[in-house]
């Protein structure tokens, strides 16, 4: 078994406000091999973006606590690094692509300057070398006129093109891991398909591991091999895409899949939905958080927390999996 590109063990994040503790991410563990793409799926408020920010160590605000038994990139634990140590890793070994292309880039610097800065910051070499690799990165995401793009300011590009420059910035140092947090949500269909294509292409080219965060299962199916489903801060299912879509084991995953409207030639059946409401973070139900909305609930579901146990490679945190 080769060393996984990214290995996260028991990662937790919580808010501390005077006496109260609000758990946002609860004991998350997973790993991604080099060249693989894993989807982290869940509805808004389930903690997927918090997980990504915790992995990169970007949650240093007062009142937010992060703890884990190790976040390893290519076998090297980055959670115990000093801030200076972690800064050398961020952008070189692990990079992130954000959701809002409109605001993710600095408006008063050109695209070339910003991507070049990342390369130079990580000991990339002298001025010519930096410019060359910056232009290469832009060409690799599909820009034929890389020089024009490098000289332009973010506000001069469309949303889709800006997201492509973000991908160029992410891949300029050829990191081992890229975390993409809903990179296509703010874009319309045609640009979305284009961005996904670029990510898949670059992933194969550099054998990069991708953690793809999304609330849209259809997009995840398009780009990922494995998928992790999150609900109220916990991992409730870990399997590969084929199995998830054909035979989801956790009732919430199954419910989520049935909610997705399908495009079909003949008239689709009436839409199904998950009863009840997402519980607020301030009073999460005891035991399995999905119990109040689950039609397969048992006594033990309301008292103890089901562990994420695996059965031939497919895990579900449920006492009565489907």
């Amino acid at each position: 078994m080769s060393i996984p590109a990214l290995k996260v063990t028991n990662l937790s994040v919580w808010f501390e406000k005077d006496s109260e503790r609000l758990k946002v991410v609860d004991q998350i563990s997973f790993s991604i091999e080099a060249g693989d793409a894993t989807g982290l799926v869940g509805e808004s408020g389930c903690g997927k973006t918090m997980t990504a920010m915790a992995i990169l160590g970007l949650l240093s605000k007062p009142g937010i606590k992060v703890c884990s038994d190790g976040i390893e990139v290519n076998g090297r634990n980055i959670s115990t690094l000093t801030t200076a140590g972690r800064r050398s890793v961020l952008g070189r070994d692990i990079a992130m692509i954000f959701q809002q292309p409109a605001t993710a880039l600095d408006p008063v610097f050109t695209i070339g300057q910003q991507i070049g800065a990342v390369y130079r910051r990580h000991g990339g070499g002298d001025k010519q070398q930096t410019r060359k690799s910056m232009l290469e990165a832009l060409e690799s995401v599909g820009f034929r006129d890389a020089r024009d793009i490098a000289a332009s300011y973010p506000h001069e590009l469309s949303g889709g093109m800006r997201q492509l420059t973000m991908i160029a910035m992410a891949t300029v140092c050829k990191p081992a891991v890229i975390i993409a947090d809903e990179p296509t949500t703010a874009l319309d269909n045609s640009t979305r398909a284009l961005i996904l294509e670029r990510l898949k292409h670059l992933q194969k080219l550099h054998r990069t591991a991708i953690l793809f965060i999304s609330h849209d299962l259809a997009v995840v199916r398009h780009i990922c091999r494995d998928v992790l489903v999150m609900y109220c801060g916990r991992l409730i299912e870990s399997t590969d895409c084929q199995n998830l879509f054909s035979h989801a084991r956790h009732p919430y995953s199954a419910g989520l899949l049935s909610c997705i409207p399908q495009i079909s030639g003949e008239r689709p059946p009436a839409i199904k939905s998950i009863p009840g409401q997402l519980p607020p973070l301030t009073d999460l139900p005891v035991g399995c958080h999905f119990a109040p909305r689950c039609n397969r609930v048992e006594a033990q579901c309301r008292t103890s927390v089901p562990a994420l146990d695996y059965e031939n490679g497919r895990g579900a945190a449920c006492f009565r999996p489907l």
Partner: protein
Amino acid sequence: MNVPYLTRRLLYGIPLVLGVTFISFLLMVYFGPDKTYELIGKNPTAEQIKEVRHALGYDRPFLLRYGEYLRELVTLDLGISDSNGERVSSILIRTLPVSIALVVPGFILGNLLGLGLGLLAAWYRGRWLDKLVMSASVVGMSISFLVIIIGLQILLCTPYGLNLFPVRGWQVHDIGSYLYYVAVPTLALVLVTLGYNTRFYRAVMVDEIERDHIRTLKAYGASPVELLFKHVLKNSLIPVLTRIMFSVPFVLISGSLLLESYFGIPGVGLVTFNAITSGDQPILKAVVGLTGVLFVVALTVNDMLYGVVDPRVTKWASKS
């Protein structure tokens, strides 16, 4: 820098200047003190009054007198001061450098310190350093300018305190004497503006630090120094510039007014102070007009600097 954008900003200034001069004309001249009775003395006849009023030009049509006032401003022929008969323009030319020499160090120091403290407080927002700076600035904002001046004077200029600096006066002939006389007023100016400056710069910096592109930079390993001094500062240059450009006319006039009248420093402020207390109208008229023009110039220069700093501006030149 595209010229149409600049000309439009200049044109935008014209109505402002007209507005300022019109209001100052209205208050200072039209409704201003009527000097006919001073010139005539006791129980004059109707005829004498009419003749003096004609001499003073009070009976001319309103717009003509306003035009007259504008001409004076443009040609800087600002008439003669009532109190000492000296030409107003020569008074201003003599006293303006003094005011500038008095106000500039305090102005620069106040803004630089404010910017530094604001940056620190913003970077460590929520932590104890931020709370310390903020509560200190609240105290700074709560002390009135006059209280600071009198307090400093007691502490530094009287036998009841350290008695190191002069209570009044401005016998400046070299650097040593300049520092000797400017120290306490500058300290007063800094103390009174530091609170407001720090809070303003902190708010601007916090706003910039919480932007998405700063988070992107952190995610790509940018060091705090690079983040703060390259990205945050350049992005907040516009609000900072705007504040500095707009406070120039006020600090120069209002700031010096109090300092000079209290410390007896012969600058524009003292001249204005005496003009207010004695009702010396030509001087007030001139100072208001000039400040208005100075303000519009500051406004225009500020908009031009926008274009230089922020690439987005020149393209769309949005009307703020």
